[in-house]
């Protein structure tokens, strides 16, 4: 039996790492043989989650962002994005479309996009302690023509 693969990635909350993080997620997802559309969906969701750490979790300083990914049964990818930043006081409110504390530089659509691009999005947060976003997406198994 093939043992299930995983990665753990740590990086500081600088904006330049937004593209790094989504590309790493894409490189890891590649082993599930996703379509370009599936790959795009995963990179988009990761970009949203990581940008939230950079913009909201650590507003005035650099903090540490942890991204974990693993392969679950049934060709499912799980991605966890975790910070030790300010946390979210009201998660239900935060997940509402258009809700943002980021002013007019943010749209408030981050969680909405994560939800519509992934099969499952779980948010856990403690004010002052940090936030963990766990996302899952099943990749359709295609017949391999090789």
């Amino acid at each position, binding site marked *: 039996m093939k043992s299930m693969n995983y990665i753990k990635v740590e990086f500081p909350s600088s904006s330049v790492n937004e593209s790094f993080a989504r590309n790493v997620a894409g490189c890891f997802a590649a082993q599930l043989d996703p379509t370009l559309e599936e790959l795009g969906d995963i990179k*988009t969701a990761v*970009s949203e989650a990581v940008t939230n750490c950079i913009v909201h979790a650590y507003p005035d300083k650099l903090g540490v962002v942890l991204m974990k990914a693993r392969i679950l049964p049934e060709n499912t990818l799980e991605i966890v994005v975790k910070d030790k930043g300010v946390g979210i006081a009201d998660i239900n409110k935060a997940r509402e479309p258009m809700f943002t504390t980021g002013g007019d530089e943010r*749209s408030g*659509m981050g969680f909405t*996009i994560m939800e519509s691009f992934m099969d499952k999005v779980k948010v856990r947060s403690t004010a002052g302690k940090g936030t963990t976003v766990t996302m899952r997406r099943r990749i359709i198994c295609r017949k391999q023509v090789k």
Partner: protein
Amino acid sequence: MKVFCEKKNGRMRILLSGELDHNVARGVMSSIDALIDENLPRECILDMGGLSFMDSSGIAVILRTNKHMTDVGGRTWVENCEGQALRVLDAAGIDRVVKVYSK
């Protein structure tokens, strides 16, 4: 990320190319703000045909451009959007605020 601009008869077309994320969004916004203030166009088209990636930061760019254009008495819409960027706009339902024409 690159921002180009074409002007013709009060219509301004802003061509965005590359990856539009939070890291570059502020720069894109201020480029667009400057172009609007300079040219005061009646119509501003955000041409997204050259984007290889866009996340919700692109939505903030569209909304802000729309607001700025409304302030100067003009109109904004999005053209040539496709693929991943189009799926982001669809998921956000931006069409209710700013018209989106796909390729």
